[in-house]
């Protein structure tokens, strides 16, 4: 006999688990942020995390941006030429890149690259007692390991997205002018005509939120990993999956905030 209450209990357990995890992540993030305003500060750690986030992510983010800008130009041309609306393509490309694809795709790529590395590094430090060792050397591990990474994510990803925006538009521009026969100066004029400051600011705000989420998930899952190599592996997976889902969910919420009226 299956007890119908079992199903209810399962839903309840899942809900409690989700609420508990959300609370734990929020407390972890708040603790990490609070260390950003209390000395001592670890500039060296911030710099390391910042370079990892920004400089070493440049190639992958740049390629992603160029190709997605190019593909949007191509796709919207095949669709829009049926209605004779080719002139809208420059606007489509710049708005989709700056508002959505720049931040979201850069976020997802960085989550896979940096978020995973972060979780693996902190996870290994956890299971080899290195995080405990920090505590015995008068160093708060939240302050030393987590706070600099959160700040690095917050600052580095918007900078990456500026690059992604430029290269995404360039990708669309290339395809439109070289392959589809658009007039270069006309394309650029309509690009800048349609783009507003709000679009750019909203895109960069999204990028900052995504950067913070990537660092938060990488640190949280790494910091709390347990159980040796397998534990570190699953922490890495969780960090990337959680960051990717949160990026898409927050993208919707932030879009609603900025653009829905």
């Amino acid at each position, binding site marked *: 006999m299956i007890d119908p209450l079992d199903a209810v209990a399962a839903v309840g357990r899942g809900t409690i688990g989700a609420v508990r995890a959300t609370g734990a992540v929020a407390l972890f993030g708040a603790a990490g942020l609070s260390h950003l305003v209390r000395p001592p500060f670890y500039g060296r750690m911030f710099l390391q995390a910042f370079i990892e986030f920004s400089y070493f992510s440049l190639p992958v983010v740049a390629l992603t941006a160029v190709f997605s800008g190019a593909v949007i130009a191509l796709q919207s041309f095949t669709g829009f030429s049926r209605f004779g609306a080719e002139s809208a393509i420059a606007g489509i490309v710049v708005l989709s890149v700056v508002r959505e694809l720049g931040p979201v795709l850069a976020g997802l790529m960085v989550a896979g690259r940096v978020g995973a590395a972060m979780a693996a590094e902190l996870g290994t*430090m956890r299971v080899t007692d290195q995080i405990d060792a920090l505590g015995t050397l008068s160093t708060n591990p939240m302050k030393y390991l987590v706070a600099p990474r959160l700040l690095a994510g917050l600052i580095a990803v918007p900078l990456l997205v500026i690059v992604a925006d430029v290269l995404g538009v360039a990708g669309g521009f290339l395809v439109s002018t070289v392959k589809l026969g658009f007039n270069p100066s006309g394309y650029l004029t309509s690009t800048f005509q349609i783009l507003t400051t709000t679009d750019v600011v909203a895109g960069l705000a999204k990028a900052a939120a995504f950067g913070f989420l990537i660092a938060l998930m990488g640190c949280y899952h790494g910091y709390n990993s347990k159980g040796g190599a397998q534990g570190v592996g699953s922490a890495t997976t969780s960090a990337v999956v959680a960051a990717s889902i949160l990026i898409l969910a927050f993208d919707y919420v932030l879009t609603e905030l900025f653009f829905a009226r």
Partner: protein
Amino acid sequence: MSDPKIRVRGLTKAFGAKTVLDGIDLDVAAGTSMVVIGGSGSGKSVLLKCILGLIEPDAGSIEIDGRDVLRLPRQEREQVNARIGMLFQAGALFDSLTVWENVAFGLLAQHKAARAEARERAGTILAQVGLDPSVGDLSPAELSGGMQKRVGLARAIASQPDILFFDEPTTGLDPIMGAVIDGLIVDCVKRLGSTAIAITHDMASATRIGDRAAMLFRGKLVWQGQAADLLHSGNSMVDQFTHGRREGPIQMELRR
């Protein structure tokens, strides 16, 4: 007799249904070394981690210099912890840093010594554990197990702590290297005048580094005495453990 440096009373910790520490009472006099022996899973590491504040015990008190550290505000607790050095079982060296940065880590974090000065101090401390200062430029991954232990010891003593903890200092080393590490530990503890707690299941090591000894079994201290008496304690559990006999009052639970 003066107050002990470390006084543990009624320390209890359970993980889920499994009680790991069950009312531990332990005194360690200032300037002496206590070895805690016991089988795998007897709660030795948890005991050390409780005293260090890495694990929050369920009940009991831990006094260091007469102050209950479990009830101290966090900042004062950190000040107490700053005077404790620990050698971790697997070394726990920071693999993203060089050897000398590992050794000088506490110095750089605490006293804000300049890097050049810290570098020099690290060389001196490395020499104290029998390593050439040039080892300082290597990364921990390039070292053998015995060298990693020495670097871990150097890091633990670098800030001249008055309390030192050793978690299975000789595990995984050959007998000669084990004896070398034991010798270094005794030297360091003597030189610093520190109070030490070592946990181990290596009997040779226990008698070499300990003044006093205690045996932990299923979360309880079943025996305390002089470390020199370990091999002829008269306690049947200690005898079985120190002589490594299969038969005796301790029955291995093969399946739980």
